[in-house]
């Protein structure tokens, strides 16, 4: 395989891993705006081990997963108490704190970052994806998956029906952060260089976009979103300085046509978008029902 095809497949694979990891958290209805921080934690943890202690990358990846999971558990515990906007802000602040911490920490190179990590292979990336996919298939068919959905649909009803939602949400965020941390470790050892600014708000936003563009209903939706967004810059490179304009407009159009993302059912209750809009205009927003977002 040519280095080019390999580079593309590595990048796509890492992004798919990021999307799948994010999906675990989102499946409980909680949107994090600081997932790049888990990526950073994984990337730095693994890089420290491989560079400074010459650990093999697969072992370092496991440690990265554990460290990221601990951080994820803390965020998951807070997530339960917060609405969509406030969780978004808290997780965003968390992301900024992590970025700042790494930028100030001289052991990991401060703002210059760490350099010289190698070892990410297609086998490592795609076997990580395989593990996560197996986990997700089992999850979506298990009672735990149902519990996630229950929390997403109505947190209070979930509590009332006896679910121990604190433990479930903490677990979901920890698992999500672990996968994201592994993706970070793989990304670091592919890029060879990491700096704190690589894991800033832009990266956090990109992870959300993978998931939301693909659709949050099924995990493969998130994966498709990641693939599409990873190859778009390659397909549309010829757009040059029109690229960002087209890219932005893509989201605008998509959110009008398919607000649920590329993959997923259009609405929970009857009627296509047009029918519903007619109905809504007719009633002049008297009926401003909305999806519970908790």
């Amino acid at each position, binding site marked *: 395989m040519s280095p080019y095809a390999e580079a593309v497949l590595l990048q796509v694979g890492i992004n798919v891993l990021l999307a799948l990891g994010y999906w675990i958290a989102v499946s409980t209805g909680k949107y994090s705006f600081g997932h790049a921080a888990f990526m950073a934690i994984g990337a730095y943890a693994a890089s420290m081990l491989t560079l400074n202690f010459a650990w093999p990358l697969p072992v370092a990846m496991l440690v990265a997963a554990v460290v990221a999971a601990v951080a994820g558990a803390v965020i998951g515990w807070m997530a339960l108490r917060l609405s969509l*906007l406030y969780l978004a802000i808290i997780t965003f602040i968390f992301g900024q704190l992590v970025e700042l911490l790494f930028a100030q920490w001289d052991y990991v190179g401060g703002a210059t970052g760490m350099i010289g990590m190698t070892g990410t292979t297609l086998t490592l990336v795609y076997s990580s994806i395989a593990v996560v996919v197996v986990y997700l298939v089992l999850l979506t068919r298990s009672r735990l998956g149902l519990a996630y959905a229950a929390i997403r649909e109505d947190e209070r009803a979930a509590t009332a029906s006896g679910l121990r939602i604190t433990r479930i949400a903490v677990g979901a965020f920890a698992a999500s952060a672990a996968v994201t941390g592994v993706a970070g470790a793989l990304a670091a050892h592919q890029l060879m260089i990491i700096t704190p600014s690589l894991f800033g708000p832009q990266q956090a936003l990109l992870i959300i976009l993978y998931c939301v563009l693909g659709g949050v209903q099924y995990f493969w939706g998130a994966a498709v979103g990641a693939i599409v967004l990873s190859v778009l810059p390659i397909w549309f490179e010829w757009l040059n300085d029109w690229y*960002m304009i087209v890219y932005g407009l893509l989201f605008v159009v998509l959110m009008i046509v398919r607000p649920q993302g590329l993959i997923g059912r259009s609405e929970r209750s009857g009627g296509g978008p047009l029918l519903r809009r007619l109905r809504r205009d007719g009633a002049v927003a008297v009926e401003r029902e909305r999806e519970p977002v908790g």
Partner: protein
Amino acid sequence: MLGQQLFNGVLLGATFALVALGFNLVVGAMDRLNFALGETAMVSAVVGAVLMETGLPFAVAFLAAIATGGLLAVIVYVASFRYVSDRFPTASILSSLGMGLVLTAVVVKVFGSDQRSVPDVLAGVDLDLGLFRVSGAQLVIIVLAALMTVGLYVFLDRTVWGTAIRGVSDDPTMVALLGVPVQRVILLTFTLSGVLAGAAGLLTGLAYHSVSPFDGFTSTLTALMVIVLGGLGSVTGGVIAALVIGVLQTLTVAYLSATLRDLIVFVLVGIVLLVRPQGLFGRNAGVLERV
């Protein structure tokens, strides 16, 4: 020197307040966040700066900036809110983020990626008020920001349309039943928020002496911090929070370190969120439940 630093902080806060007010109006009316508002401010500032460079008086540039802001906000409303289903809470956020990208990219395409210098106004003026000095540009910033804030208060409080905006933000179902044209009120709200953002953009440009195409997202973020601190939907809370954040940032930079500037705001907002989720001056928890 402390006097001067406090004044610097108030000045910074005054520019934050305008974007935050614009942000807050939309939150009030629709319970949705317009993430393209920072870019709206940026484009307005660029338009204002370009006009000032051609030698037009500041007043004309300012009017053009607020007109640009209002117009862009309407475009953003149509593209990212009017036809986007509100059943998916992330849809309009993503869509307006997309509009923000488009606005930035268009400015880079038309005017280039460099920072654009914003000419000074009233360059000869330099008032020495004992405790602190005020330059011409600072005078313009503080006066216009105060005028627009007071104007907004009066508009919301004393006029029919202002009352309608407050009504829609309190209970859209009820005011719709009372015969208020909700869609038109929402459109007006967006226009107003754009006008405020446009003014904020050019005034911030004056304070910073320049405007960069990549400033937009930062402004949005600051505005978000301000309204969370002040309480969603609260106009008074927003103004006070903006001033608090402005002064806090200035004093941090002056007496601690610039690295801590944003951090201190984040920590403050984080603590407030966890301890008092409705913000310092939140009117009710109702908005929170919905956003």
